[in-house]
């Protein structure tokens, strides 16, 4: 099926089987491999992307369901020159080890902070509890997200849609 949607600010048209998930489409068809697959049943959150600004598990929706929507992946939240405030904060707080869950953590945190730049630690924990990390024990991730709030209050955190 031909499907057209926007990925990281760019319109793409892909020819996919109806059964193909958005995650597989991003990774295999569009070769955006920053979106990772940790369970393919919607529990681990590693594949989280933004669909029209909302955090969505790309393993739980089909590529054809993205028709007409705007999808942002970790690549769209990154630039070549420097790290975003959220990415810098992850590095500063050592909020990642193997890096596999990190894109999903960052997309989830970005969606949260974009909507709620004043959220407290409990709220961060609640939202991130849908993303599993096996390395860090989460404490540093929560610290990193809290520390990045100021950038979102000023509007600096928003790099959404910027081509990677």
């Amino acid at each position: 099926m031909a499907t057209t949607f926007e990925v990281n600010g760019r319109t793409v048209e892909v020819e996919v089987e109806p059964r193909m998930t958005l995650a597989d489409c991003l990774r295999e068809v569009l070769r955006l491999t920053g979106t990772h697959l940790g369970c393919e049943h919607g529990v681990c959150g590693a594949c989280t992307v933004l669909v029209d600004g909302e955090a969505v598990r790309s393993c739980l929706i089909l590529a054809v369901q993205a028709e007409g929507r705007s999808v942002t992946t970790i690549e769209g939240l990154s630039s070549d020159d420097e790290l975003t405030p959220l990415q810098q904060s992850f590095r500063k707080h050592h909020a990642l080890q193997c890096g596999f869950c990190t894109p999903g953590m960052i997309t989830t945190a970005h969606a949260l902070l974009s909507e709620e730049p004043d959220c407290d630690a409990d709220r961060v924990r609640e939202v991130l509890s849908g993303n599993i990390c096996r390395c860090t024990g989460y404490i540093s991730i929560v610290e990193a997200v809290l520390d990045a709030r100021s950038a979102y209050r000023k509007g600096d955190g928003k790099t959404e849609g910027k081509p990677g």
Partner: protein
Amino acid sequence: MKNTFIGAPIERREDLRFVRGRGQYVDDLAPEGLLHAVILRSSVAHGRIRSIDASAARGLAGVHAIITAQDMPGGPPIIPMRLQPLPEFKPFEQPVIAADKVRYVGEPTAVVLADSAAIGEDALEKIALDIEPLAPVTDREGATGSTSLLFEPKGTNLALIFRAERGDAAAAFRDAPYRRRERFKVQRHYGLTMEPRGVLAAWDAAAGILRVFGAAKVPFFNRRILSAQIGLPETAIDMVENDVGGGFGARGEFYPEDFLIPFAARHVGRPVKWIEDRRENLMAMNHAREAEADVEIACTRDGKVLALRGHSYTDMGAYMRTNGAVGSRNIAQFMSGPYRVENIDIDVTLFMTNKTPVGTYRGPGRFETDFFRERLFDMVAKDLGIDRIEFRRRNLVADAEMPYRLATITPFESKDELDSGDYQSTLDRCLAEIGWSEKQNLQGRLIDGRYHGLALGCFIEGGAAGPKETAKVALNEDATFTVSMGSSAVGQGVETVFAQIAADALEVPLERVRDVLHGSTAYVSDGYGAYHSRSIVMGGSALLDAVEKFRAALRTEGARRLGCAEDAVRLGDDRVSGPDGRALALKELAGVAAEGFFLNKKHTWTYGAHAAHVAVDAKTGRVDILDYVAVEDVGRIINPLTLKGQVIGSLVQGLGGAFLEHLVYDEHGQLLTGSLMDYLLPTASDFPNLRSIATDEKPSPINPLGAKGAGEGGMIAAGGVMANAVANALADFAVEPRELPLSPPRVWALINAARAYPGEVATGSATRICAKEKA
């Protein structure tokens, strides 16, 4: 330039790619002409294969080949053990694919190669796998009591008995004024990694080179296995390490797929990739930890431990895998932990069942024994009327007793000794940090509907397994350096810490250590990899040697070019200078390189104490951690940032083992926890109140860095501390947890059993509890 990168909280260089989603994991590779492999796994725990009919599947468009044991002339190769490769284990080693029998749910029986994984999965459904079921063996009783045998020629389901001996336990028990015997149990769980396993193999027929991507942990060892199995010299095989999404002991051992995928790639002459899905991962990756202990302690009345004896029983699953015996061996060795126990007689029986085979999981055997021992110690201290901290103090090995010999393990006789440590000091620090004395009035108290409890446990963590590690330093044309390591990355940040060590040793800015290459077999002549918390100690020490040899090589080359004697050459200021004032800029000597080694037969021993304050809701069985302090002396600290990450990360894994994680089987050998909805992992909201404190009082005397392995300590004490904290919180109910995990239903059941049979309540009463509730 004297640097102090060692010891500084340097931000990781790895992060620059990971936070942008630019890491490259094995599933991110997609070479031209790639085929995808999917594996048909047995759905029967124990049975005889009658037939595999793949004709319908072969006819499916997009299916290129289906491989079974029939395609392997001479039968499927057997995977040898890497650690403790005793002859007794030989009959229990795993073939790479089932030929006649299947022995666990998840055992590979056929490999489908297709244009996509989806088509491959379609094909799986069309393969008719006919298995004659046999009686499954799913527990110790079945392994010893039933007539069903996993390996008929062997005549038994028992693989081996390890024994730990020291002194004369029988005599010590005969004369002991106090004894207590208890039974404990730790559940099956495992080192689940966020990135499932994966292998991509490509056979370059023209060059005669087999390239295997997705290597991890022990690529050099795995190359030796693959070389023997597939009939290619080691020089014709490149093992390539990509970014690795977590190790924890489980990833990177040689699994069936590590043969099947390279074999498939040669079979079809195209690159083949296999990526495990999560359901497969839960049934195919090494399981761990399932152990029982029936252990007895002898003490004097004033609380000196005289002896430990008893039996442990460990469930190996269906085969002895590469490191399958490590946890059992360690249970024998670490029952005494950091304590002075002069008389020990512990045996550990390894038995086979129709469940997924086991391997190591971070802190193997140590997590289990800390639970057994620390639980027992709290019970004994209570019996003897001695404060639980004082009881531990009286028995901790003293600094003056170092090196302190541990019990000797047989077979595969191994003697080991604790290298250094001031165990009282970390205990003191832990008590001070948690506010132990101030919080004692909370023990067992009911506050706002929850019972409060505090507990403390001590531990040791072994690290730095030998025999060798290799490192190489090379000078680049821009006067930067490339460091190559035989160590492997599993997410722990080796690129950063090795850059710190190299920059200090070379006396250059950190950025001048341009590349830190690791893991793949092409970089250095030999390597041993990442296990037993060995990377920094072994790899870092090898790197120091490499820098020294690199300096010598620089002198040799400088002397040759400058036409002077080597000892007249001076190194410094990015120049190589001769006695006559002539000098070469460093970059003119690009290409100079040297390999260094570190050989070591001893282990390092970090040590410490954990203390926790919990609140237990008696109505639901839920346990909340209000405060948790982990104190560990790790010798010389290389990077406090990554160290803390290791401690908190492993602590949360330990808490997962204490409360949540459980691989459950039914009586037919079916895995009931085949998804992350059933296999519960800690999440961000579960354990927010954890603190770690690292000290560096006792550098290791056995390596030039003074470093000790420190990747596992966070989890070792967690099970015992949590069980004791719950017991103390629920002291009025006389609840004594003897089994993990302490899931809400189990804690609730313990409380209700105590309420239903108040006659068994040793101290306190329901009336007293009600009175307290009112107060």
